[in-house]
């Protein structure tokens, strides 16, 4: 019984990782950039949700939508201001810019707001369901359900819409896509918008589920989500979902076995092992290097 409860704990944590990992993986898939500022978009999402609920008295779903919308715009702005002009620069230049943007958002936000933590208001009545001795909270169920719905919508957008088709084409071969008349700039913006909106949603979930939010809250979940993306195969959308869930469950199992101090280490050991033995990830194919 205890194990089922641990599994539920792990899946709730994993679905938050998965939502953040999706943004990493989509951006990497399309412009081969590891967007280290993604964890901070997650933080911004959490705070937008917080101000919407605590300040304006919005409910959970309006706050969630608002946070997603603000993050989408924010993600596009980051891309337009910082990354666009580096599209033809070396990859290390873009990577360092991403780190710089991340620090700028974190400390810029601290400068404006201060570094103290805030407590998320109780926006969802948290009911406990007792199923044969397992305590399931309505919050973790809701987080799970909404995450799955968002992932289904994402799948639909990527595979059934025109912009999704354009995204897949650009990620496959940017120049050829451009020659076919696809507007690469719009497509890349759309990718950032969708990825950032998902991170914003993850931020609101994190706030509701874990209560405490602060300006540096994006750092560790951001890095963990990066591990999840690599674990599933970076650039592959289902990989990010599975990678996130696996990572959440593994971390919970490590704690459950009594090694709670090793939990963070476990995530990075996974990263090292994956990079050593299967760099393309669980879902990765050994893709031919384009010449």
């Amino acid at each position, binding site marked *: 019984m205890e194990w089922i409860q641990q599994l539920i704990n792990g899946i709730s944590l994993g679905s938050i990782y998965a939502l953040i990992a999706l943004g990493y993986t989509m951006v990497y898939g399309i412009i081969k950039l590891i967007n280290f500022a993604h964890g901070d978009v997650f933080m911004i999402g959490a705070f937008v949700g917080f101000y919407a609920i605590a300040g304006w008295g919005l409910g959970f779903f309006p706050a969630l939508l608002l946070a997603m919308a603000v993050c989408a715009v924010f993600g596009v702005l980051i891309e337009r201001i910082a990354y666009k002009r580096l599209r033809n620069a070396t990859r290390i230049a873009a990577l360092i810019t991403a780190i710089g943007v991340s620090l700028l958002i974190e400390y810029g936000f601290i*400068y404006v707001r201060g*570094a103290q*933590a805030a*407590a998320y208001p109780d926006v969802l009545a948290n009911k406990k369901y007792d199923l044969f001795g397992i305590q399931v909270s309505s919050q973790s169920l809701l987080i799970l359900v909404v995450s799955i719905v968002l992932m289904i919508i994402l799948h639909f957008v990527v595979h059934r819409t025109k912009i999704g088709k354009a995204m897949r084409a650009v990620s496959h071969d940017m120049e050829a896509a451009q020659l076919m008349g696809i507007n690469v700039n719009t497509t890349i913006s759309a990718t950032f918008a969708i990825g950032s909106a998902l991170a914003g949603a993850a931020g609101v979930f994190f706030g509701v589920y874990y209560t405490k939010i602060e300006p540096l809250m994006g750092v560790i979940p951001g890095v963990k989500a990066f591990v999840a993306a690599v674990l599933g195969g970076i650039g592959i959308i289902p990989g990010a979902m599975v990678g996130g869930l696996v990572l959440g469950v593994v971390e919970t199992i490590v704690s459950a076995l009594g090694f709670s*101090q090793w939990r963070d280490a476990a995530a990075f050991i996974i990263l090292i092992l994956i990079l050593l033995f299967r760099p393309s990830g669980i879902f990765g194919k050994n893709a031919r290097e384009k010449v």
Partner: protein
Amino acid sequence: MKKISKLLMTSVLFAGVLAGCASGNETTGGSEGDTIKVGANLELSGAVASYGEGIKEGIDLAIEEINAAGGVDGKELEVVPVDNKSEGSEATNAAIKLVNQDKVTAIIGSATSGNTKAQTQIADEGKTILITPSGTADDLTLGTDGNVIDYVFRTSFIDSFQGKVAANFATELGIKNAAIYADNASDYAKGLAKSFKETFEAAGGKVVAEESYIADDTDFRSTLTNLKSAEPEFIFIPGYYEEVGLIVKQARELGIDVPLMGADGWDSPTLVELAGAENLNNTYITNHYSSGDPDETIQKFVEAFSKKYDGAKPDAFNALGYDSVYLLVDAMDRAGTTTDKEKIKDALAETKDLSLITGKITIDELHNPTKSATVLEYKDGEQVFKSKVNP
């Protein structure tokens, strides 16, 4: 390669500039006037900002009162606050600045044991008095050689005393099986856990599970699920409010309904916000004082504090910050000087039966005050006075 290293350099420089921005709000040294400068090396931002802010409010109130009554020896007190961002390395930097640049007579701070430890040596070398209002780790006033550090004092009681009070309280509740869930990185939590365990086991109780967590963590559910299966009747959680708030909330969500107990690290309004008032029912803390204590001096202090801070009720950190100033001023009065730090230090060490808000203080040979502790219970988010325990 050259290009890459150049890029790395730029990014490091860039990061440095950013870090500089964040710390741009510190106060720089005041002018050399005819005032007595007292440094305040406090956690004004970061993880335990509410402690530092609380102490600062207490200090400000005490200084305002003393200056209004004519100051010390005709001179006014002036506080020089520095924010250590709740980090040990920043606390060291702040102490260096206060000792060398501002040349303060004494430093009050920091709120936590770890941040205080980061500056004891600097204060001692600079022959500047350091009084920590709330650093409770047993060995804080001792140097690496085990001897008392001449210039370091404290206003609060020590961890082993708090752990003992908590263990005795659990025994009085009739608890036989207890669990401990402690912060693994702080000297404070480890000291409390140790003395709790010793006292509780000596009284015939059994510690059925012992787990620890990492500071800044947010997910405690899996470890709590483990603790729950050990079926303790009582869980002792020494730690600071940011994590404890989440632990209490998550524990209640997992159906852990037994009494939870902590120490002065829980004392913050943020704890109630994080945990939720309802989840905090059936939890207890040991603390330095209670604003609900009927004692007359305490009630007078509560009144003066509410007047200055828009009706707010002073918590233990407010009271300790306030007391630290009076402890220092008492020593200055007895030493008959406001500048000779050595004489003031000697007078501090001889403090005897000084009545302050948080109890009657006598400084012992290890520079620790002997004083009483209070047990409080949370009822619907309010701290309710339970009992007072003498050493």
